[in-house]
């Protein structure tokens, strides 16, 4: 038995990583998604110094340069935007702000929404009611108005932008969490945990949250695109990111008037937004499978007995 125990305690950390990696290998799409996201992160971190000011330097004579032309520098391969700036450079440089804002906003709304939802769903006290009605109020409050108010009282800044985006996206997490909790808290294993003396906190965190999380992740992965695009529509009010800074969303919005004539201006940023969202979703559905003991076998190499 001692042998058995020492066997189990062997570096559990690398063991876990190895399992994750093995499971990732089995899902080719998820693997591709991870690779894409990694590349994105690398480009975000290492790209801007390499690109320099190419992304903001005007080239009014290359206005709306069409993509795939070989006369120009490779950096113009995907074309140029309305001020003649190379789209490749702008995609790389814009990634930082885009991903930063979207991650921050999605994470904030998911965390606050999730936590409030857990409370609202599990507790039957007065504050549960208050939380829910507040969520209703937030849902009914037009995000644009909120943005305007923030703009007027606090002024435009990335932090405020994140606050506005996170705030308006929060109810969906809250309500989804609550809905799931309502059902989960009636399950027997919750009763069992209560009977063992588990505190409400523990029940919510250890027993209920893990079962809600997959749904939240599914929503969050798609919300990523919503947030990026919402951010671009806020720039219409001047609350968005301020030039010369820009995001993919702003690039898409910029090219909006040119869809009929210079599709590439909004197409490429739209495409990277799409690819990013797609990758996150593939990853989240992989994670969902991985986290579910009843589904995990799908990601494992199943060795059948020879017959």
């Amino acid at each position, binding site marked *: 038995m001692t042998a058995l125990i020492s066997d189990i305690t062997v570096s559990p950390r690398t063991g876990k990583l190895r399992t994750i990696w093995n499971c990732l290998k089995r*899902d080719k*799409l998820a693997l591709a998604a991870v690779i894409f996201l990694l590349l994105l992160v690398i480009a975000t971190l290492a790209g801007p110094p390499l690109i320099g000011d190419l992304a903001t330097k005007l080239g009014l004579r290359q206005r709306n340069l069409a993509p795939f032309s070989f006369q120009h520098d490779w950096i113009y391969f995907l074309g140029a935007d309305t001020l003649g700036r190379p789209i490749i450079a702008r995609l790389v440089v814009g990634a930082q702000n885009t991903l930063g804002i979207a991650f921050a906003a999605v994470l904030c709304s998911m965390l606050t929404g999730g936590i409030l939802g857990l409370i609202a769903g599990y507790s039957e006290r007065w504050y549960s*009611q208050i939380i829910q*009605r*507040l969520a*209703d*109020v937030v*849902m*009914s*409050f*037009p*995000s*644009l*108005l909120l943005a*305007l*108010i923030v*703009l*007027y*009282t606090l002024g435009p800044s990335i932090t405020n932008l994140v606050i506005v985006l996170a705030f308006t996206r929060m*109810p*969906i997490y809250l*309500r*989804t969490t*609550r*809905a*799931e909790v*309502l*059902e989960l808290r*009636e399950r027997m294993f919750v009763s069992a945990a209560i009977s063992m003396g588990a505190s409400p906190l523990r029940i919510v965190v250890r027993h209920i949250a893990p079962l809600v999380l*997959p*749904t939240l992740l*599914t*929503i969050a*992965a*798609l919300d*990523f*695109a*919503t947030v990026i*695009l919402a951010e*671009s529509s806020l720039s219409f*009010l001047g609350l968005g990111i301020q030039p010369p800074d820009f995001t993919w969303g702003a690039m*898409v919005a910029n090219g*909006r008037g040119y*869809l*009929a004539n210079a599709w590439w201006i*909004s197409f490429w940023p*739209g495409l990277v*937004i*799409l690819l990013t*969202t*797609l990758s996150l*979703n*593939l990853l989240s*559905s992989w994670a*969902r*499978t991985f986290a*579910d003991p*009843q*589904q995990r076998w*799908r990601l494992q190499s199943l060795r059948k007995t020879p017959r």
Partner: protein
Amino acid sequence: MLSYIGRRASHSIISVLGLLALVFFLTRLTGDPSSLFLPLDSTLEARQAFARLHGFDQPIHWQFLNYLRDLVSLDFGQSVRQNRSAMEIALEAFPQTLKLAFVAMALAIALAIVAGSIAATRPGGFFDRIVSLVSLTGASAPDFWIAIVGILVFAVSFDLLPTSGTGSLAHWIMPVFVLALRPFGLLVQVVRGTMLSALSAPYIKTARAKGLRRKEIIFGHALRNSLLPVITVAGDLTAGLVNGAVIVETVFGWPGIGKLMIDAIILRDFAVVQSTILVTATAIFVLNICIDLLYAVLDPRIRY
């Protein structure tokens, strides 16, 4: 149950009133409507006269008390821009958005449930992959992008559909499609995820042992057990459409409440802002009450 509805309704009324008060005070933080309503080159006196005429010169709490007093007599104020009762304007626009949102959501929910459920029966399979890719692509593409490209392709190049406007059935196709795309994408993912868990529950084995049809097992047993998050998300998306179908309304010239509200906000037509919010908030609160009741219908273990 009836007492629950009553309690919920009274809470909701309080919340809506709170919302209105909040909106009332906060909108007045966002700048002076007179500078927006009058032409840029009008004089200061003209502006002051305008403010006096509409009571914007009074202390804000007076304005609010007046507003409340008028509310009691069901007077929701006049739109300074449109020279009409603000509530009348809001109530004219609301059904337009509602029917569009309703059709789009009904379509999105129905398709998402079917596609998501079938995808969940064979995760990783061909159908699953296709459904996921298509729905995610639809959901993460910018909607105005899809709308405009749709018009350029279907109306201009192929001349199959009208570009925009309302009227015939053909006018519905593109707006509904554009509006349904994102909810569809999100719902497919949610349905697929929750169905995957539900399908491995033991009672599914029971259903199989009973000899139920595949359809009945998937849609009768598994789906029913995974509907809670689905209707929540669907409800939220519907609420989002009810006060946010702006892009579609703008692009397709659909005279709905979303665009009305945005315009009113941007132009500081306060009475219209308040009325539209009152209308949409009421709709959203009612929707949420319905959804909560639906929980209890769908899952008998949930009781209020």
